């Protein structure tokens, strides 16, 4: 691949630009509050783990991480399992209203969460799911299911149709063909779709905060409330922030070899 002159410098500068604010957050999470407020230091002079200790020992803090992971995982499972058959249908068949249906799905990916915050609150309160991980997981389906269908459709279209026909000639039933042949063939696509579902569910806050109050509150919401209630505990805020970055960083590390093709959503 041909690159441009000065590419090392450009890339280096951009990576510094990306990492500097994150470094500042990490730096701050290891400082005492006195050091944060009183002096400007580029690295913690009196490093402390007190903020992390507080988060890991206080249940109201660490339960937030568990709540968040709970609805993110639920949402990813629901999204992928309903999107797979639909992706196959869109990729292989023409049927009444297919194009309109596809556009309608896509338009839901683009719908602003702020529009849905209040109606979702009413809806999930009415059916008794309010303040459970299920409410958030289902609510996040509105943007994750269309995205998963879109990504998986690209990957299914990359599988030659002859494979379907051969399998059916060999006497495979449709469900068996689907599970035994198709799913393994597009495994990397499923990985990419799961990555995106995880990502968008993990980073979303507005709906997650509106649909929970006590027992299923996500970490992101706990951060905003505890901090503003107790004045500005910058060190604790920074430590909580660092801990929300870690799951994302882990997921990226696992899919790093698929990132490039994955971001093209299977359709370059």
């Amino acid at each position, binding site marked *: *691949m*041909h*690159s*441009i*002159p000065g*590419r090392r410098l*450009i*890339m280096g500068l951009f*990576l510094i630009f*990306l*990492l*500097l604010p*994150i470094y*500042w*957050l990490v730096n*701050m999470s290891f400082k005492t509050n006195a050091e944060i407020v009183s002096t400007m230091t580029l690295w913690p002079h009196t490093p402390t783990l007190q903020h992390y200790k507080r988060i890991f020992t206080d249940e109201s803090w660490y339960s937030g991480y568990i709540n968040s992971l709970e609805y993110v995982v639920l949402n990813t499972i*629901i999204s992928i399992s*309903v999107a797979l*058959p*639909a992706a196959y*249908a869109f990729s*292989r068949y023409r*049927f*009444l209203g*297919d194009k309109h*249906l596809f*556009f309608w799905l*896509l338009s*839901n*990916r683009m*719908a*602003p*969460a*702020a*529009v849905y915050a*209040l*109606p*979702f609150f009413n*809806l999930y309160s009415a059916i008794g799911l309010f303040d459970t991980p299920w409410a958030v997981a*289902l609510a996040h389906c509105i943007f994750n*299911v269309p995205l998963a269908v879109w990504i998986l459709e690209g990957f299914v279209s990359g599988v030659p149709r002859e494979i379907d026909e051969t399998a059916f000639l060999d006497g495979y039933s449709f469900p068996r063909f689907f599970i035994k042949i198709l799913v393994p063939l597009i495994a990397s696509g499923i990985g990419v779709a799961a990555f995106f579902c995880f*990502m968008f569910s993990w*980073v*979303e*806050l*507005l709906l997650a905060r*509106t649909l929970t109050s006590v027992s299923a509150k996500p970490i*992101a919401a706990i951060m905003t409330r505890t901090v503003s209630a107790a004045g500005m505990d*910058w060190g604790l*805020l*920074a430590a909580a*922030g660092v801990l*929300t*970055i870690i799951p*994302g*960083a882990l997921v990226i590390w696992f899919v790093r070899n698929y*990132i*490039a093709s994955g*971001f093209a959503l299977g359709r*370059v």
Partner: protein
Amino acid sequence: MDKTVNQKAWFLVLPVFLVVAFSAVLPLMTVVNYSMQDTFGNNQFFWNGVGWFKELLDPSTDLGGRFLASLGRNLFFSLVILAIEVPLGIVIALSMPRQGWTVAACLVILALPLLIPWNVVGTIWQIFGRPDIGLLGYVLNAIGIDYNYVSNEIDAWVTVIVMDVWHWTSLVALLCYAGLKSIPEAYYQAAQIDGASRWAVFKAIQLPKMNRVLLIAVLLRFMDSFMIYTEPFVVTGGGPGNSTTFVSIELVKIALGQFDLGKAAALSLVYNLIILIVCWIFYTVMTNAGAERKPQEGAA
């Protein structure tokens, strides 16, 4: 690839249809219902017809003025970040190392901001930009630039825009990189034999190959910036004054802050309609671009 007509495919689509309809159509019905009514609390509702919509589109009323002002701000914001992120993303994609472990390292670092929860992105920039405890604010003030995003409108805007560039340029870059990687090496060799300049290679080979992913990138970035809420809300809270109040922030203020359900619902519908129209335009352009490419490939 020719698709066969098969109406039974609807059974495969049905689960998706049900899940999305449950979370999209049902709530939207509530919104439509509210948008025609007025409430004075106590769950009492009064019929208001198209009153809210008239008010919404009339800049002389309070509601209309606020809506149109936030809409203008939001459009300006989306255009600015697109004008920065798309060219920058292309440059970054072209600057990617060719091989070795640095590729993976760059990809991981690039993807990192995308997986940070949006309110944490706001928190990071809030901390980073504060004149008293943040590196950026401190350094800027130290070299004599009077920078304070809490009280100065322009500083607040710059902070929100730089934050968005920090947050989302990687998405454009990664999409473009995926497009660039799909170009066979033979194209470049041919260009070299023809003595093509660097610029000609970019215009004739790389840009056309990135066309499709760039469209996806522009669509995603436009939509997401058009409904941006969390990041500016955490950093500036929509202020100073109303200077960084975007449409979503205004909407949440009216709906969950004032509990003015009728106004909020009317605003939601108009907001949704704008997004739907833009989405449709992009979708049509995208499918047409795909349709045009096929005969060309057949000819080549």
